[in-house]
């Protein structure tokens, strides 16, 4: 990646560049999502203004939030399991950073270009379940325990449809490498017309829907927010957390939303690329170097669009009951995603 920018950066410069890049790629979208969607979009949906005092149009609200959460007293309940109680939020945030490693932002702008990128992010995605379960168990509070167990059941139940939905994409792109998937989408053509590329959202629409529903469940958001059901279990596994630990949970929740939106845009909307025909490229190697800079901007717009949908559903839907949620996943989503794979495979072989 660095060599493409036609300037030689020593190795320690590269690692600093990667660390800063990683932080920006995770925290900036999280901050943007919290401000844009949680404060502003929710308020406008509810016909009110949202924070306006801190800075023009409440733009400094995030600074105020972080500043305040730093000053809060850090309470750990006495019969809680102290070390594990303190580690739990970091584990949840850890899985977000691990996910961003494999997301490509440009032909060379990717932290680690694995050949089995899809396999990697599906495996790493389930680390946050551990964090939530630890948080639920360690905070020695009945509500947290109930919330943690519900989260474990739900996240496992919804990882399966996500895996099967991505399987459809992998079959169609014949590769697990994310850059290759983007290349296939942008060079493909629909009935000969190459101007729009072949984003998998068109051919894999059922897979896209199942993936988005599974993402909604992975983030424990509204229709599936049984683990943090305010009206029943006070605030689920986050009940006992205060101060900057709660801030880490809060940021992790929205950062994961951003990262999953990145991945969804890579898999279904053609990631950082625009249809290659517009610039006369034929494959990934002859994409110009400036795409490494424009790529992240395109990815950001697609990500904000997808997160907009996720948050829109979050703020307007009531929540499932626990058993309905499980039956919806096992008895409905998984069979449909299996059918989707079968159809893709048959079409793959036939055409």
């Amino acid at each position, binding site marked *: 990646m660095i060599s493409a920018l036609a300037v030689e950066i020593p190795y320690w410069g590269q690692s600093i560049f990667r660390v800063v890049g990683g932080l920006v790629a995770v925290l900036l979208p999280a901050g943007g999502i919290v401000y844009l969607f949680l404060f502003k979009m929710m308020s406008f949906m509810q016909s009110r203004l949202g924070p306006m005092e801190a800075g023009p149009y409440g733009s400094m609200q995030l600074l105020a939030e972080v500043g305040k959460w730093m000053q809060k007293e850090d309470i750990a309940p006495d019969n809680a399991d102290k070390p594990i109680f303190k580690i739990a939020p970091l584990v949840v945030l850890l899985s977000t950073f691990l996910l961003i490693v494999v997301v490509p932002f440009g032909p060379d702008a990717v932290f680690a270009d694995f050949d089995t990128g899809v396999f990697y992010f599906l495996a790493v995605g389930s680390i946050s379940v551990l964090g939530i379960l630890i948080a639920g168990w360690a905070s020695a509070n009945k509500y947290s325990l109930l919330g943690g167990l519900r989260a474990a059941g739900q996240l496992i139940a919804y990882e399966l449809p996500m895996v099967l939905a991505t399987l459809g994409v992998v079959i169609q792109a014949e590769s697990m490498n994310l850059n290759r998937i983007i290349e296939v989408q942008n060079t493909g053509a629909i009935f000969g017309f190459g101007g729009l590329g072949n984003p998998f959202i068109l051919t894999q629409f059922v897979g896209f829907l199942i993936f988005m529903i599974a993402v909604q469940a992975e983030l424990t958001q509204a229709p599936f927010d049984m683990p943090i059901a305010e009206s029943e279990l006070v605030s689920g596994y986050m009940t006992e957390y205060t101060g900057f630990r709660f801030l880490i949970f809060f940021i992790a929740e929205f950062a994961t939303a951003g990262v999953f939106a990145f991945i969804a845009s890579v898999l279904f909307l053609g990631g950082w690329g625009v249809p290659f025909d517009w610039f006369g490229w034929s494959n990934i190697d002859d994409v110009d170097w400036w795409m490494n800079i424009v790529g992240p901007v395109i990815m950001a717009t697609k990500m904000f669009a997808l997160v907009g949908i996720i948050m829109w559903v979050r703020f307007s839907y009531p929540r499932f009951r626990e*058993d*309905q949620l499980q*039956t*919806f996943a096992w*008895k*409905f989503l998984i069979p449909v995603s299996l059918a989707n794979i079968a159809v893709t495979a048959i079409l793959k072989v036939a055409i």
Partner: protein
Amino acid sequence: MIDLSRSSWVVAPLSDTETTDADAPQALPGDGLREGIVDDLRQRIGDALIDSHIVPNDDLFVRVATDSWADTAGALKTAGFTWFSFLSAIDWMPSPYGKGEEDPTVEKEPIDMTIKQGVCGGETRMQVFARLTDLDRHVGITIKADVPDDKPVVDSWTGSFAGANWHERECHEMFGIGFNGHPDLRNMYLPGEFEGHPMKKDFPLLARMVKPWPGIVDVEPMPVQDEEEAGGDES
């Protein structure tokens, strides 16, 4: 596309008939109805029915003997009064503390402590009373019974009306009346360590003892004490 009404994960789909149209409201109960009810009750519980008072076309009060308090409930339930309204008690002794609104400077005249029962009379200081309604004939009945002063215990209504459970718990903690046959006679409202029964007339309201009610000015006689007939001009 998603067939949500399937019974597998939506609990069994129940009937979707919107409404049953209300038939014409029955004729409002006339006078004969309440006499009929009292006679019917007299047949069911015999001379336990001590006194009855009918407000024509309006209301019906009945007083029964204490020991047949529980089977009056059963009798009325079979007679059609299926809807349980409430159950509570009245302490007929006038409050020895007055209203706490008297002008402290003026010498207080003694309060007559004679116990005078209400509509259907009665001998004892405490009376337990309940109300049932017949939803089809749109008529309500209030049943009273004396509570013996020495041992304030009556039978419980939970046998025929499960709804009386909470009402009797509240009556127990407020008036100190025991209900034998009641499943668990704990305190309903007051915290466990609250001693005394607040609704008894001899339970003082301490705040009023310590600090008389600030609005005493209301009690003074008006500058021109108008007689009854000239009363309404300035209201």
